[in-house]
């Protein structure tokens, strides 16, 4: 019987297999950041163990870093300690680090791919659940806990229990204005936040094949929000073109050998998935969340659901509690929901295509009075590229704030936070209670919807906008497919 993509990558990394024990898997790339690594380094120090493979390990600072005044000392003592500890640990153990202020600094899941370190057929781990992002390259990539971080640092391996396989097939053509974010939000709403538990999801089908690498990363990034261990997309010419000539991509003969291998990384025709989900791309539309988990989402054209309509009592209770926290009432059209804050950024939607898409909507327009809009590139490289293309000017001319790279408002760990009761449209990945700051209310959206929402002050898509002053009609606002 044939094997799936995930099974092939797994099999190629088994160091040791023994009856009754989990497989010992080799790890090709270990990414570190300041939040989940300190106790791991401390454990190594106590046991007198070195980092086994410094050449497969790299660190960056992202969660705690401010996005303003980055040359000033960090005010919050906990944030400062975490960053200082990472710097000290990396210096002591010899780990390559890209600290705040470095040109390669940024959100760890943006940095790995842009350096060309994330490659097809590799195993990638990081003490962070959104490590699933890297699966967009056909890598088996998943988040790990702090004791596993220590294990990988010491041994470059992990003992792992087997996973199940799920195929999410999206065939057809995504309608105009429908993005990768809408696609993945619809997938999560369909299978639920626990629906992927124990699975590695492979996204496939003609709509997925047409996505850019950036869009594929958006999709795989949120696999974890469906409860999955990882998400993957088979590598193809789009993947190879993205990787070619990146700083850490294979060169010369190695490149040819790598591509030959990468082309074998496809699910065999006779392979069987443990579970399959099929979605018709043509039925998708801009999607937003109304609740406090990423599965509580609906098409923008819909209304806030009525909890009473849920047959399952626990779903009903969850919906009731979500509406209460979010300050929403059943039946209220989603388009009527007014926001105070708009956030464009994060490892879900902080890459160059995302910024281009948001800028395309804002070009020639102003954000509504009283709206605070933060645009935060996922990395310094993304920032430089955006500035080179003049996108920062578009954002500031529209009234948005252009910030330094980092996780920013994706989570309330740095100064960029919502105040209690404030409401945001956010391109990030989690709408949990308090995720963006205590008492903050989050609606997850695509970059295009975020930008249109900023202009109108309520949840909206670009199609809702009047033509910008002195330009063509609104229907001519072209937003790149899948960005």
């Amino acid at each position, binding site marked *: 019987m044939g094997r799936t993509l995930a099974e092939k990558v797994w099999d190629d990394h088994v*160091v*040791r297999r023994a009856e009754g024990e989990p497989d*010992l898997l*080799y790890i*090709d*790339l270990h990414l570190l950041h300041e939040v989940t690594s*300190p*106790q791991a380094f*401390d*454990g190594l120090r*106590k*046991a007198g*163990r070195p980092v086994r493979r*410094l*050449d*497969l*390990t*790299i660190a960056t600072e992202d969660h705690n870093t401010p996005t303003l005044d980055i040359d000033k000392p960090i005010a919050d003592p*906990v944030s400062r*300690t*975490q960053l200082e*500890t990472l710097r000290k640990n990396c210096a002591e153990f010899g780990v*390559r680090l890209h600290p705040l202020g470095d040109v390669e600094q940024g959100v760890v899941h943006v940095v790995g791919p842009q350096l*060309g*370190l*994330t*490659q097809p057929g*590799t195993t990638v781990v990081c003490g962070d659940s959104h490590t699933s992002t890297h699966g967009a390259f056909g890598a088996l990539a998943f988040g790990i806990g*702090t*004791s596993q971080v*220590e*294990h990988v640092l*010491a*041994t*470059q*391996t992990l*003992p792992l229990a087997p996973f199940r396989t799920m195929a999410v097939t999206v065939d057809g053509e995504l309608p105009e204005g429908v993005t990768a974010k809408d696609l993945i939000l619809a997938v999560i709403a369909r299978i639920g936040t626990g629906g992927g538990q124990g699975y590695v999801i492979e996204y496939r089908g003609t709509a997925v094949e047409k996505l850019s690498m950036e869009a594929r990363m958006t999709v795989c990034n949120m696999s974890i929000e469906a409860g999955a261990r990882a998400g993957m997309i088979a590598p193809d010419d789009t993947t190879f073109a993205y990787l070619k000539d990146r*700083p*850490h*991509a*294979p060169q010369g003969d*190695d*490149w040819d*050998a*790598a591509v030959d*291998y990468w082309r074998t990384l496809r699910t065999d025709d006779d392979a069987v998935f443990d579970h399959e989900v099929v979605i018709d791309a043509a039925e998708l539309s801009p999607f937003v969340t109304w609740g406090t988990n990423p599965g509580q989402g609906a098409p923008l054209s819909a209304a806030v659901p009525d909890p009473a309509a849920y047959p399952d009592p626990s779903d009903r209770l969850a919906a009731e509690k979500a509406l209460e926290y979010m300050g929403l009432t059943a039946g209220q059209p989603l388009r009527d929901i007014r926001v105070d804050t708009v956030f464009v950024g994060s490892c879900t939607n902080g890459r160059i295509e995302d910024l281009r898409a948001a800028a395309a909507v804002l070009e020639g327009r102003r954000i509504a009075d009283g709206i605070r809009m933060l645009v935060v590139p996922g990395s310094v490289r993304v920032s430089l590229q955006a500035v080179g293309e003049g996108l920062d000017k578009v954002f500031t001319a529209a009234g948005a704030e252009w910030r330094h790279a980092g996780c920013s408002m994706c989570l309330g760990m740095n100064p960029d936070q919502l105040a209690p009761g404030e409401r945001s449209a956010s391109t990030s990945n989690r709408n949990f209670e308090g995720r963006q700051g205590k008492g903050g209310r989050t609606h997850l959206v695509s970059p295009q919807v975020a930008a249109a929402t900023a202009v109108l002050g309520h949840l909206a898509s670009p199609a809702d906008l009047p033509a910008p002053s002195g330009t063509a009609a609104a229907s001519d606002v072209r937003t790149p497919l899948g960005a």
Partner: protein
Amino acid sequence: MEAFTTHTGRAVPLRRGNVDTDQIIPAHWLKKVTRDGFEDGLFEAWRKDPDFVLNRPERRGASVLVAGPDFGTGSSREHAVWALQNYGFKAVVSARFADIFRGNSLKNGLLTVVLPQETVDALWELTEADPDAEVTVDLVARQVRAEGITADFDLDENARWRLLEGLDDIGLTLRHEADVAAFEAGRPSFKPSTARI
């Protein structure tokens, strides 16, 4: 990880059930960046009371905690185990432990011993009457002994072997170092490297 064969020490009778990990180590301690220094956070809220059993002078230096049922419920924080160890506990006895806490304890070399509540009661009475009474936790013989008390306990063979050998997960994997080295020797040269270029 330190090997555990047998340990003899004085005990702390903790007459409370359902001690959750937030009581063992409150959330605000989780901001620390090391694995040690949690001893002052152990049972922090209760220790504000001078009469709390841990605060009494006769309990100083005790190393076996005898607690009520359902010890270690709540959040999965490994810090709870570190806090107990940092304080100086080598073993915890209870009629029932929460699963995740138990897994974390055995992985970190803190022996959690499950004994029937009657035996726990007997240990409480003994050590309350005589704070100097010694309790022996013998992993080789899988037995807890104290004056007038001999109680056998179960522990799965794999967890026991790892404790006796002092093998944490990393130690175990390092036993297969030759397999790891052999795998590395066969990795293709096109695999990514983070070495600066």
